[in-house]
């Protein structure tokens, strides 16, 4: 591995000595495990849907390498640069989501994709890290500058994005965005009474979604009572874990994975369970946990409220996505389409995660003092 002299004051040299190298290493390790798993899981899927055997692997690598590159590049930015990037990205992705409603292509009952020459983008993936950073900025402004209406602005922004997302509809992203926003709001000093009110509101929102949206209801019913309906993927996923046992069947040796339709995407953790076994699954979970806890630790030491809020927002998004994915694969929570960061196949998701983690790394770089003024 390349090293830099402690006295190297070039941009890269400073970066190397200030960036959270452990988190960076963990993310790259996760991505490498992901390549192995995609390699194992996707040929069966590709053949089933009539694509060439290595279609998904090629596509995955084509997206993963740029994503990692973007992550590195973004991590070079200063907090101010991060903020500017986030604002631009937020404007772009909100526009993109609005555009999907007009020119989007409907896939599986929702219009989430924008088809550009060469690639398809899912703008809702990019709105999450962008909004986390912008929200952190507005919260920090509200707390630090008297008279600045940061919270009303951020709430308005939140409502705008959520209503756009619900029009697609994309409940998974809505949920994740809301959870991260609520977490940031909590960190930004929301009065405890309001926290309680919001928790109640959130629960009633979920209950309302349960009764108002039939497919949410069926998901939750199937989670609570596996016998009540089609929980094929989850049942197969559990079989896969069971088949894997402690040591796994070995990469490429799994058989249950063949019968999991989304094995290369939302259910890739089950492939890990079958082929790599408990030890490696625990290692993957531990890697995610490591990134999350360590980033929280770095955020804790931030001297500026903006950096603290933005870093925690980004890491919450990363952690929640991993938790929900692993949880639904393990039948801990109801199934919700969500990718396992840096492991699952999915171009937009990878790029957005690259940007998000890049911003996280940029924000958690060791700095002297509270950083630049806001």
């Amino acid at each position: 591995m390349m090293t830099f002299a402690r006295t190297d004051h070039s941009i890269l040299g400073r970066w190397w000595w200030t960036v959270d190298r452990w988190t960076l290493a963990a993310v790259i390790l996760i991505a490498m495990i992901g390549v192995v798993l995609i390699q194992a899981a996707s040929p069966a899927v590709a053949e089933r849907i009539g694509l060439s055997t290595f279609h998904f692997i090629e596509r995955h690598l084509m997206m993963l390498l740029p994503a990692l590159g973007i992550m590195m590049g973004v991590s070079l930015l200063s907090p101010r640069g991060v903020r500017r990037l986030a604002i631009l990205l937020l404007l772009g992705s909100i526009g993109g989501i609005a555009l999907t409603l007009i020119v989007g292509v409907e896939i599986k009952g929702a219009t989430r994709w924008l088809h550009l020459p060469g690639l398809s983008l899912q703008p809702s993936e990019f709105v999450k890290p962008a909004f986390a950073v912008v929200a952190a900025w507005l919260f920090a402004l509200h707390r630090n500058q008297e008279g600045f209406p940061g919270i009303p602005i951020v709430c308005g922004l939140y409502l705008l994005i959520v209503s756009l997302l619900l029009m697609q509809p994309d409940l998974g992203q809505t949920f994740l965005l809301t959870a991260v926003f609520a977490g940031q709001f909590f960190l930004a000093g929301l009065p405890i009474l309001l926290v309680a009110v919001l928790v109640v509101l959130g629960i009633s929102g979920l209950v309302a979604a349960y009764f108002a949206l039939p497919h949410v209801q069926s998901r939750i019913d199937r989670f609570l009572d596996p016998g009540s309906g089609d929980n094929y993927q989850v049942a197969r996923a559990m079989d896969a874990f069971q088949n894997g046992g402690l040591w796994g069947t070995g990469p490429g040796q799994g058989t249950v994975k063949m019968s999991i339709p989304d094995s290369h995407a939302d259910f890739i953790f089950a492939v890990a369970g079958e082929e790599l076994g408990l030890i490696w699954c625990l290692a993957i979970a531990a890697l995610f946990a490591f990134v999350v806890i360590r980033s929280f630790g770095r955020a804790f030491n931030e001297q500026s409220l903006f950096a603290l809020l933005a870093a925690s927002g980004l890491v919450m998004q990363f952690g929640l996505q991993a938790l929900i994915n692993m949880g639904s694969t393990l039948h801990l929570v109801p199934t919700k389409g969500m990718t396992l960061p840096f492991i699952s196949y999915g171009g937009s998701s990878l790029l957005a995660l690259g940007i998000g983690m890049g911003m996280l790394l940029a924000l958690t770089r060791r700095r002297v003092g509270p950083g630049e003024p806001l």
Partner: protein
Amino acid sequence: MTDAHLSLTGFDMAGLDRAPTRAEPRVRYQSRTQTALEQGRARLIVTAALFSIAFGAVGLKLVDATVLSQGAEPQATTAATAKPPQAGRADIVDRNGVLLATSLSTQSLYADPKLVIDPVEAVQKLSKVLPDLNGEALLAELRTPKRFVWVRRNLTPRQQYEINRLGIPGFAFQREERRVYPQGSLVAHVVGFSGVDNNGLMGIEQRYDQRLRSGEGPLRLSVDVRLQHVLRKEIGAAIEEFRAIGGAGMIMDVRTGELLAMVSLPDFDPHNPPPPQQEQDTDPRFNRNTLGVYEMGSTFKIFNTAMALESGRVRLHDSFDATKPIRIGRHMISDFKPEARWMDVVDIFKHSSNIGSVRMAAEVGPAGQRDFMAKLGFTRPVSLELPELGWPMIPNPWREVNMMTISFGHGMSVSPVHLVAATAGMVNGGILRQPTLLKREKGDEVPGTRVISEKTSDVVRKLMRTVVMDGTATRADAAGYVVGGKTGTAEKVKGRAYSGSYRISSFVGAFPMHDPRYVVYVMVDEPKGNKQTFGYATGGWVAAPAIGRIVAQAGPILGVRPVDANAPEIVHALAINPQQSAPGPQLASFPGGQR
């Protein structure tokens, strides 16, 4: 932020807990930032703790899913809860549990024209397996842009195998249920049939459609296929012998009202029911027993006699003038085989005298007769578990001339099942019970209404026995079963007038007459006399012999113990009071002055 701010921040760290006040704006600003940061950090710990717990849960579940559940059975995949498939249509069984109707699962062939590559070749190949296939029509259908075309419903397993082996793309099988009637046409009019979509279209199948769909157990009918066989065979034989156009018959348990057999000929194959026809006489689907209403002829004299005796105005040995025909308006009422003498009630019944019957009815009058007929249920359709029930045709107004003709069974039409139910009520001690096609369980309360006294019923039984012993129906007897009954020969209305050569010959009987258990009825529609019958086609010649043969075969099936008809106790039980019998006509009284 500037360096100046930084130093102040450091300064303020000590006073972190102090509540900021508006009086110190500079410090408040610093304190405010720092408070927010500290609060954020504190809450960050909470958040991080929650995340740690969540990751811990994932880890634990991982251990559980991989190692702890090792060796457990793989989870059974549960299919999505679809609408539960319609439970099979319930079976229909006879009183002994013999299958009358059941549902078999079959395969039906359909095509998705969009997927059929070469319709001509497909039709060509299919025709080899299904030679009766309408190739032209199918070809036309296969060329439409439809996505679903029935080719053939309910294939046999062999046909399915052959078609499968052809391997024509675009053709597939759909599991279906087919109603099968193992007894064929034997109980066709009772059971009825179901359409291709398994909805009842006739008989019990239609009447109990909901019940049969509801998934309850088999529906048990009162009929006994063994008796059904006997009845059908003998009626068929009578129809053939007398070149009749049809016939019908029933056997009823007089104690419960259960119909043990019900046959209407011609009948049909319920698997392939013929289209209904306009002309009921030749329609195989027409149930003569329930839907047909006929002038019953002399069998009605059972009720006429019972009515007269029950009224108290006529006694058994009263004599009436039957010396010459009665003329009323332009009608002439005469006897078929005139005795041309004074006759008492016993003789009138035994010789089936129309004139005598009119004289007896006159003692009761039109109103009394109408009330009695209504009491017997002759003014309304019977209440039976079939959709095919005929309305009786009754005179309105009920004048004297109607009374006269009704006394010997003309001028009023009822269905044979009316007649059978009422006859059962005459011989069973006087209780009219609703006829039923459903099996009554032992101990079931069988409701009934008293229509005549036990005494009158007793006399009617004796009279019916004399008809078989030395009256018009000696051929109806079956050795050991003490049959009694009454013949009937009714002229049919053809066009607008009675026709002498088109008649309905019938016999309604019961056995054993000393303790009647069963009523047996046979009617033959438009019989033609032959050499053996010396050209006669009356009830006594046509229907009575069939009854004799039916009882001889049904008796053992029903478990009726044969007795010696000449045994003293039987003779005594059926003897008409000898002290009062055979008085001369000159000794009789003539109440009412009907001369």
